[in-house]
């Protein structure tokens, strides 16, 4: 690990000042400390934001749910309103990492976590995400866990967050505060596809702080759930996953939101699947037909061809679990 200076500001203003001077924010530290030890990350100054008042989870006037960026994964998963209104969020969280890590890690850090691609983590390997222009060892290397959607010739690494998949399905908004004031983006706008600049992973300007994530109000009743498929039953990243959110009244699906994880360079909204669902009546046949659209546009690599079919099956299973069969 490279040496670094450490500061812990007591308020948001001082944090922004330290951030503007090039300091790196540290929240739970579960991504950052790990990557600093591998020397993938080499910040000169760590700005510890854990003392800032950004931990609240609260419901606003429009019934939107605002989750402070520093709320811990375990606390958000256990929050009564999250559990009752958005099971897809609490399930995605409780299927992530371990109880210990969820006690440390924050919601803001979670959507900012970096890929688990082993070539990215290995400073001796070529990786355009770590060092632009150095090449991508995964393209010709062992790429079983890599992405099949949203990839480019420069990068095929997945975004590993489970939570971000659930939040993408719910059209979550990211609230930012920087030297130039506040701004807000949807999570889908915030997380960037690799293209020719895989080192640019998000639209966070220098010194900007994520203050909160906001789930906008959704039509009621809302059913939702998260399914994660992996090599072992727990404490493992997804090979494929599906977040399904359905609004059904009078036996007809009025609104459908479906997103996939483990397969995309960013959390992947399955708009073709959603289009199939809206206006239709739940049935096993519908789930199968809609799920068949899930891997639309997929570009499998040498070792991850299995993900195409696995994704379709994951989506079908989760549509049936959430939507039921009449």
């Amino acid at each position, binding site marked *: 690990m490279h*040496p670094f200076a*450490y500061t812990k500001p007591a308020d948001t203003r001082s944090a922004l000042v330290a951030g503007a001077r090039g300091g790196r924010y540290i929240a739970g530290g579960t991504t950052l400390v790990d990557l600093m030890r591998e020397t993938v990350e080499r910040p000169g100054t760590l700005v510890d934001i854990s003392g800032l008042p950004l931990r609240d989870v609260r419901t606003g006037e429009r019934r939107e749910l605002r989750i402070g960026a520093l709320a811990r994964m375990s606390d958000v998963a256990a929050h009564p309103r999250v559990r009752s209104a958005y099971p897809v969020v609490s399930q995605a969280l409780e299927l992530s990492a371990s*109880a210990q*890590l969820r006690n440390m890690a924050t919601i803001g850090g979670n959507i900012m976590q970096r890929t688990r691609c082993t070539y990215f983590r290995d400073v001796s390997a070529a990786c355009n995400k770590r060092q632009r222009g150095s090449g991508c060892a995964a393209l010709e290397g062992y790429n079983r866990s890599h992405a099949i959607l949203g990839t480019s010739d420069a990068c095929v690494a997945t975004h590993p967050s489970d939570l971000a998949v659930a939040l993408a399905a719910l059209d979550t908004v990211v609230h930012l505060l920087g030297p130039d004031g506040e701004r807000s983006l949807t999570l889908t706008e915030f997380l960037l596809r690799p293209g020719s600049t895989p080192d640019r992973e998000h639209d966070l300007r220098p010194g900007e702080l994520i203050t909160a994530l906001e789930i906008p109000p959704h039509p009621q009743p809302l059913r939702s759930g998260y399914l994660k498929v992996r090599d072992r039953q727990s404490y493992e990243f997804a090979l494929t996953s599906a977040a399904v959110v359905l609004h059904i009244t009078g036996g007809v699906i009025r609104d459908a939101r479906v997103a996939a994880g483990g397969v995309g360079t960013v959390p992947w909204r399955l708009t073709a699947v959603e289009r199939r669902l809206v206006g239709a009546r739940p049935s096993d046949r519908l789930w199968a037909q809609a799920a068949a659209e899930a891997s639309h546009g997929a570009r499998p690599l040498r070792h991850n061809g299995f993900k195409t079919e696995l994704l379709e099956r994951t989506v079908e299973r989760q549509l049936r679990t959430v939507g039921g069969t009449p």
Partner: protein
Amino acid sequence: MSAEISNDDPDVEVPEVSRRGFLSTTAAGGVAAGVLPSSLAAGRADASAGRAAPSGGQSSALSVTVNGRRHQVTVDNRTSLLDLLRERLALTGTKKGCDQGACGACTVLVDDRRVNACLTLAVRCEGAEVTTIEGLAAQDGERDGELHALQRAFIEQDAFQCGYCTPGQIMSGVACIREGHTGSREEIREWMSGNICRCGCYVKIVNAVEQAARGGRD
């Protein structure tokens, strides 16, 4: 691995010579290195765990309470809580398996929540209360030294082989019971999944957590 264990830092309490002190001295002499279990050899401390702090604002003074005892130390900012415990405070019960958050051997309680000490920077523990495996047994009065119910359950259930993962399993289990995630064997398995056992003692580990949870004592 640091061969130093005696402590010339006036602000750190000096522990008695321990089995660990003996082991590391012997290893430094080149005698026992070949017989050290590979898991121990893999447990390299960051160079940053060494005592000499670099200059230029890259070290910090800190006050942290471990198992009820307050310590004032100056640490290199890179030092993990795990290395602070093991290399500076000679509390070697907490183990280093992966140093990446992926095994749970380093599990301790910080302010009563279970965390991975390997991914916790010591400098961030200012004012914190840390509990390690050494702090679980009763520490005063008539019951002084009496093991925690979960420690006894591990012995009674024979829930380990090599024992390397055991301190982390027990610390995690104590938290798991307090959190109330022991409604069924499946629930215990899921909520204990952050602790890997290379020897595969999972069935008996679940037995032990179940026994202590049903005993209702912690």
